[in-house]
């Protein structure tokens, strides 16, 4: 049993020392009290590597919730996003380490990638449109000025349109940035949701097995 936990520990080096020690200490005590032998451990929790993935996923999920709940103001938005990025990788790893059928796991990952790409394309298109509005607007404005001398009406029209285009583009820019964060956060929540399902399912399947 000690070897099992030692091996599990070796896969948990990314967890802060204190948290890792506490975590392993809990399970050491728990396994002792339960009197699990090597066989039971593997049938209940999988290989040390699989177990470490479960523990890591739970640790990050729990930490993420705790972090969101208690330190929303303290941790900057950027730091929270960095933690979320790590979480995506952990969930992907946990997904493949779980007893979920490989084709299903691959399908889920492909689905996530597709969604991420769709979001990316949407954002690129959105920003491209805004840039077009701003630059096109400036160009139209300048063109309007040039025509002003020959035709007042046409010139005024183009300068007006040009200003409107630029104005709209500039105005919508912060809106677009906000939309970016909403989509990214939404995607992260989807990943966390999947992570939770995978971890719970892994536990249940291993208990049934």
């Amino acid at each position: 049993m000690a070897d099992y936990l030692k091996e599990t520990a070796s896969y948990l080096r990314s967890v802060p020392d204190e948290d890792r020690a506490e975590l392993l200490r809990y399970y050491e005590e728990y396994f002792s009290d339960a009197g699990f032998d090597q066989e039971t451990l593997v049938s209940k929790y999988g290989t040390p590597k699989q177990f470490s993935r479960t523990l890591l996923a739970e640790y990050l999920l729990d930490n993420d919730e705790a972090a969101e709940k208690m330190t929303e103001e303290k941790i900057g938005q950027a730091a929270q996003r960095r933690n979320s990025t790590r979480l995506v990788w952990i969930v992907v790893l946990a997904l493949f380490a779980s007893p979920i059928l490989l084709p299903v796991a691959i399908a889920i990952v492909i689905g996530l990638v597709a969604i991420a790409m769709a979001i990316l394309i949407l954002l690129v298109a959105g920003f491209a449109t805004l840039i077009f509005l701003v630059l096109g607007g400036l160009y139209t404005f300048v063109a309007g000025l040039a025509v002003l001398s020959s035709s007042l009406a046409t010139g005024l029209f183009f300068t007006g349109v040009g200003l409107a285009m630029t104005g709209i583009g500039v105005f919508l820019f912060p809106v677009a940035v906000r939309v970016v964060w909403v989509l990214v956060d939404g995607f992260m929540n989807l990943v966390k949701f999947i992570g939770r399902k995978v971890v719970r399912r892994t536990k249940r399947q291993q208990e049934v097995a």
Partner: protein
Amino acid sequence: MLHHQRNFPAYERMDIHPQAVILDGLILALVAKEPQYGYSLNQAIEEWVAINESSMYPTLRRLTKEGLLTTYDEPYEGRLRRYYNITELGEVRLAELRGAWQHYAHGIDRILGEG
């Protein structure tokens, strides 16, 4: 009856992670009766209801961090056993959860119950 439609405090709603909130209550209730260690807690709960084993440790850790539980170590068979104890804050939360659970269970009964 429209009394259960709006303005529930977060714990009364129990709609986001009902399992997680229930586990909080189970742990606090058992520990309030007498101090428990990891395995004894698990066994006491599993005697009546199946829970997700792997969420025990994260929950215990969180409850301790939130100041609802305290821990102390006692030697046992040459090693140390960590016991969990309830705090005053924990007792308050337990009372809240009990109330929330009654409300929740009542609502479920109304729908699932006969008639």
